[in-house]
């Protein structure tokens, strides 16, 4: 289908929540997954995938509680993919805040190697003070923090110390000069709880990714925080990402607001991301 018009229409498009895999990680079909992301990305019209790899994806340590060795392994792989695809891949350095000193060193090392943001998953609750030095380092370096979120955490879920919107909002209030991306409003849980929790936190952005495509979710996100604080992303379901792009065109955003969600907001908060060619 090379050469056909992008399914998401013309113009730049930045996916702020992408993942890749690598040989030896917990997904034996790693190569097919990576190729499928690029294939679908080309069809959709994704200009830049901003991606991360969470350790070994569970092979040597848990995905959401990655060991330092696994953190290094995953970031090595992510860096290599970005270097292979400089035209279309940017990346987050993923860290586990429990190994704080290591995490800070890893951030510095990977930013020097090209990382443009920090990925935090679910190894420590977002409002824990252990995250403060990481948030400070991110603010100093102009590195947005993409934080895994469970929309309204009402109980413990296995395999993760999940945070919700209220948890991340407390961290964002403590660090007003850092930019926080609240991950995947469609990624599970009650997104309306999230919208209420983050409505008045200007340095907190909502990423639209996730398999959830509830009718009303996008309208409510737009009403809660406005187009300037919405970022398009797909995470592990590019099909729902495309559906959301099509739906965004119908819920009342202006042309300028659509451009903000597609790429403008991302280009603004990621200081190291080039403005895609129009």
């Amino acid at each position: 289908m090379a050469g056909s018009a992008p399914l998401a229409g013309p113009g730049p498009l930045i996916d702020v929540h992408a993942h890749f895999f690598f040989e030896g990680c917990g997904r034996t079909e790693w190569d097919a997954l990576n190729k499928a992301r690029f294939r679908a990305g080309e069809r959709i019209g994704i200009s830049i995938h901003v991606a991360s790899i969470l350790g070994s994806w569970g092979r040597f340590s848990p995905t959401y509680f990655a060991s330092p060795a696994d953190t290094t392994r995953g970031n090595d792989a992510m860096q290599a993919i970005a270097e292979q695809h400089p035209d279309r891949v940017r990346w987050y350095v993923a860290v586990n805040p429990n190994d704080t000193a290591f995490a800070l060193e890893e951030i510095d090392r990977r930013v020097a190697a090209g990382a443009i943001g920090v990925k935090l998953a679910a190894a420590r609750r977002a409002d824990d003070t252990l995250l403060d030095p990481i948030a400070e380092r991110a603010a100093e370096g102009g590195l947005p923090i993409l934080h895994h979120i469970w929309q309204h955490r009402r109980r413990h879920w296995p395999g993760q110390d999940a945070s919700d919107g209220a948890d991340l909002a407390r961290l964002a209030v403590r660090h007003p000069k850092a930019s926080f991306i609240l991950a995947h409003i469609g990624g599970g849980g009650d997104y309306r709880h999230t919208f209420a929790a983050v409505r008045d936190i200007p340095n907190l952005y909502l990423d639209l990714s996730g398999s959830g495509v509830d009718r009303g979710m996008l309208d409510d996100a737009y009403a809660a925080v406005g187009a300037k604080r919405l970022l398009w992303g797909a995470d592990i379901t590019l099909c729902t990402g495309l559906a959301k792009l099509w739906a965004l065109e119908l819920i009342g955003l202006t042309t300028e607001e659509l451009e903000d969600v597609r790429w403008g907001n991302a280009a603004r908060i990621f200081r190291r991301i080039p403005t895609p060619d129009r």
Partner: protein
Amino acid sequence: MIDTNAYIGGYPFRHIPHPEPAMLARVLEREGLDGAWVGHLPSAFYRDPAPGNDELFAALAPHPTLRPAPCIRPDWPDWQRTLASAIDRGAPAIRVYPPQWGLGADDASMRSLCSACGEAGVTLVFTARFEDLRQRHGMDQAGDLSAAAVRAVARGNDRTRIVVCSAGRGTIEEVHWGLTPAERDFVFWDISWIWGPPEDELALLLRTMGADRFVYGTAWPLRLAQTPRANLALLPDELKNVKLADPSSW
């Protein structure tokens, strides 16, 4: 092509922006669909769905492309009369919600209803889930439709077409490969909740089970109607021209 997985009416656990039939008709037109088998969403949560069926027929009457798919509860007294009435009023399909009614996988009444639907020439439609399990209201304790419940109805069935809506890969495969080839021929799956790339689960299922096992469905108004269209548009090139089963010809 028609939408086998559409509803009108509200949902008890969250606000839905546009549950009215006129909006559904406009959405179908926008999505390039010829019509829909439409259920009455509140009826899934009624003890006796009969009043909801009446509301459904009345609400859809002005909309010829919206075909009523009323709800029959087979553990309710005199359900046969309700079924006959629904068929007399033109229903092409009957919807059932065993988890919401507390009916287990081995409930014999569901097999009786399946058989009666086959005799009458109407399709039996299950719904695997209305919402993602991770966002359920505290009072929504029904759980997802189990693969075992579908297998129990499909096994031995040689006449009734069964459509299962909003199922994911795991349930689909567990049922499909748990049936004989003859039994599989009567079971169809809507594509509204099957993941596309990069996992490419829809592509995998189309390759392993065949496109004729799948029908189009949106889950409107609970979910974005654009999702199945996006999923089909992102299929790998060799699957671009697949043709799903078309229930409008049944």
